[in-house]
């Protein structure tokens, strides 16, 4: 136990400042007045791998490491879409996953944010559309923000996730006016 405690002290705090939101990744601005009020500052995310190569998953994992410390920003990954404000969807949507993706979307309570992750999620990527792949996430469910990259590094993921929140915050402000 002493070793463990010493290691914690020696390691110190590694968390870096969070990057700014990336407005350029926003593809849709949905105007729903209750979004900001509903979400507040905290955000829960359900990740859905719709057929990716696992590269994007590795980078999403990295968001949890001490450098990015995504939970410190009030963002948490949850196990059920019913507990989620946002779906973070990776991969070209394989036809075998299409039903599961649709069900996860349906199970997510309104207002649901959808962020498509990676070149595959944004365009179908190298796999494209085929007998087995439906291509980009937007072909299957509505998408709010697209984060390109193969895979997008954690900073790009954070900027995209924050962009989705900004979009909704703006939507909330507009609704007030």
């Amino acid at each position, binding site marked *: 136990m002493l*070793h*463990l405690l010493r*290691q*914690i002290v020696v*390691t110190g705090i*590694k968390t870096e400042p969070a990057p700014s939101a990336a407005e350029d990744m926003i593809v849709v601005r949905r105007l729903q007045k209750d979004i900001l009020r509903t979400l507040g500052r905290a955000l829960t995310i359900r*990740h*859905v*791998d*719709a*057929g*990716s*190569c*696992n*590269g*994007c*998953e*590795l*980078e*999403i*994992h*990295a968001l*949890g*490491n*001490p*450098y990015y410390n995504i939970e410190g920003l009030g963002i948490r*990954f949850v*196990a*059920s879409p019913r507990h989620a404000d946002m779906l973070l969807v990776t*991969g*070209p949507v*394989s*036809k*075998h*996953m*299409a*039903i*599961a993706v649709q069900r*996860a979307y349906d199970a997510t309570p309104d207002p649901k944010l959808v962020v498509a992750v990676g070149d595959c999620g944004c365009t179908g*990527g*190298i*796999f*494209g*559309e*085929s*007998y*087995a*792949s*439906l291509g980009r996430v937007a072909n299957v469910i509505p998408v709010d923000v697209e984060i390109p990259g*193969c*895979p997008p*590094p954690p900073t790009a993921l954070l900027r995209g996730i924050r962009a989705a929140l900004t979009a909704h915050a703006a939507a909330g402000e507009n609704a007030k006016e």
Partner: protein
Amino acid sequence: MDVAPLGISAATLKSAVPARRCPVNSGQLLAACRLAWEQGGQLVALWATDDRDLQRGFCVRVLLRDADGFTLLEHTLPDELAHYPDISPIFPVANRMQRAAFDMVGVQCDADDQRPWTWQAAWPIDRFPLRREFEASPKWEPGQEDYAFVQVTGDGVHEIPVGPIHAGIIEPGHFRFQIVGEKVLRLEERLGYTHKGVEKRFEAMPIVEAHRLAGRISGDSTVAYAWAYAQAVEAIAGVAAPPRAAWLRALLLERERLGNHLGDLGYIGNDAGLAFGLAQFSRLKEDVLRLNQRLFGHRLLMDAVVPGGCARDLPPGAASELRAQCASLARELRVLRDIYDEHAGLQDRFRNCGCVPRELAVKLGLTGFAARASGLPEDLRCDFADTAYATLNVRRATRQQGDVAARVAVRFDEAQESLRLTDLMVEAMPDGDVALSLPPITASSIALGAVEGWRGAVVIALESGPNGTIRRCHAHDPSWQNWPVLEHAVIGNIVPDFPLINKSFNLSYSGHDL
């Protein structure tokens, strides 16, 4: 393995590892498999090819591996009505491969288990994507299949279905647990959810560019796949990558191994309730990925290996940065290993959990680091070492117990060994070019690439078409071997130990489903 007594002739198969190809009839196919099994050989992969356009019907290919190298058995079926013999009584791991070969090419096997494996109603069941006439373009709406899971009945037995979307940030697949109380009586896996038509996609890509696709078969093994693919292209072209490129590739592969082991060691600790482990190891992994980005231009090292060599050389000052990181990681790893080893709660969860005894590992063909944790010392880096590995003499990491603790120990050993090797490679790497320009690729040639990825042996079997095209590319992930073993490893364990056992293997879905 000497196949001559079976009346089988063998020709050299182009490959970076010793390999032969042998035409066989159905009797010889079974006899060769039996002989391989008796002599300690294992089935690596089984796949099929549509050769009707060449008036050769279909070809079923069975790749075996033993101490002498790889043996590719090629069995021709005259038409789609012909059957080939079931080899799963000899190599149980063949079961799913035979079913996948039917789903993809429509070649029929004499096996009892005729359930689909890769197919899940995304296309009509009587159409086969890897047949020449099959249009790759989208056409059919996804459907739903009714898969015949095996159900356990009896007093107090219940079923837990899990997935395809899992409760964490992981790939999709479906698990059926048959449970009494907390005890797992049976686990049945249903994979194929991430099938995205990779093998068909290969056939639409130029052979010298498809390393990008190979590097995206399983994102955590991008170096292993791209290297295996590059090996196959170079073998067909009759060239070898420049010596410096060969060393650089080995260095990249060890960086990949290191990153994956570090990440998994963190998650394994986390799954046993030690969040400290995840925080520490994910920090170290991030350090590795950041240096990757700075030195090689990509955190996961995608597209760093290309046919003919490597995409770029080490930048100036890379050697000292790499060596400094190796030294500091080696130090940190020792500290963390002590903490894991002396943590009673952790060890209580690790030991005797998810056991795969040696006999079971042999019978089921367990491979990679998981096999080494069950007392099977196979490792391509040692068994068929060339270039960097032959010079550096890789120390095999093995354990006998085959439990989570053994797989953790092997991962610690291998992470340390990767650091040692990287350090030596930086020092001993020869000077020179890191890539050569490839000559035109000859048509109708077949070659093999095989690389010991962090999970196990990654194999690419590549067949060239005319004008620099790909006729057929079969990619094999070691997860094909290890997924069925996971079903056995959890028997008798409690449900909450499944995530821990699963993570100790950390198998690929995408690499398996293609």
